[in-house]
């Protein structure tokens, strides 16, 4: 009987795929993902600076790509990633200083991070479109 039982590999903890996503866990991984995404955008920042140093022709090529609709979508993603990472980072700094560990506070600050990052992204783009006119 015992020999007929197929040998099973026991699941290892933590098995994150069986957990229901929660605000706390989603924001936690979001801070990492936006961090990695922003480091890719940082390469673009350096490319932009190098093109500006190289001269008007190189600059207009890079600037033209940024001003294209695809470039603008990427830039919008960059803006949102930045503000999410910024607000999430400030939340982390508060935790590091020893504040905000009560469950209610953790959820309140989590929703505040989502609201603030969305608001700051929209304000930035509204100001940018406004300054273009």
């Amino acid at each position, binding site marked *: 009987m015992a020999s007929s039982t197929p040998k099973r590999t026991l699941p290892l903890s933590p098995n994150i795929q069986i957990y229901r996503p929660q605000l706390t866990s989603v924001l936690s991984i979001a801070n990492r993902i936006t961090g990695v995404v922003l480091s890719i955008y*940082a390469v673009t920042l350096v490319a932009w600076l190098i093109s500006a140093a190289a001269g008007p022709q190189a*600059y207009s090529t890079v600037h033209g790509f*940024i001003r294209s609709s695809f470039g603008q979508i990427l830039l919008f993603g960059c803006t949102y990633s930045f503000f999410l990472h910024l607000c999430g980072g400030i939340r982390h700094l508060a935790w590091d200083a020893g504040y905000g560990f009560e469950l209610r506070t953790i959820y309140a600050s989590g929703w505040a991070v989502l609201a603030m990052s969305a608001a700051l992204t929209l304000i930035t783009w509204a100001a940018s479109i406004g300054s273009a006119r």
Partner: protein
Amino acid sequence: MRSPLGRALGLGSAKDGVEQWWLERVTAIALVPLTLWFVASLVVHMNSDYATAIAWLQTPRATTLMVLLLTALFWHTALGLQVVIEDYVHSGLKFPLLIAMRFGCFVLAVAGILAVLRICFRG
């Protein structure tokens, strides 16, 4: 830099974990004003032409803050990506990946700072 407890007990692994942890926070605090200044500047200058953008980058304030931004940004990036790689890469690829990431961050920081200085000193 060691934690007081670690110093008292004389224990610890590489003895420099606390300093890395602190530097990630210190660079994060520095990046709050620097990145907000940069985003605000882009809002103003994103739609301007080449000459205006260069004239802005050549101002002493913009040059100084851009060099500080690039330094803090790639330092923070290197520390953050190091944690990500150490957490998720457990194969033999981990070490070369860490070295490559460090080199990449250093090269980008140097290239970015030199570009800013070239713009600054072009006159």
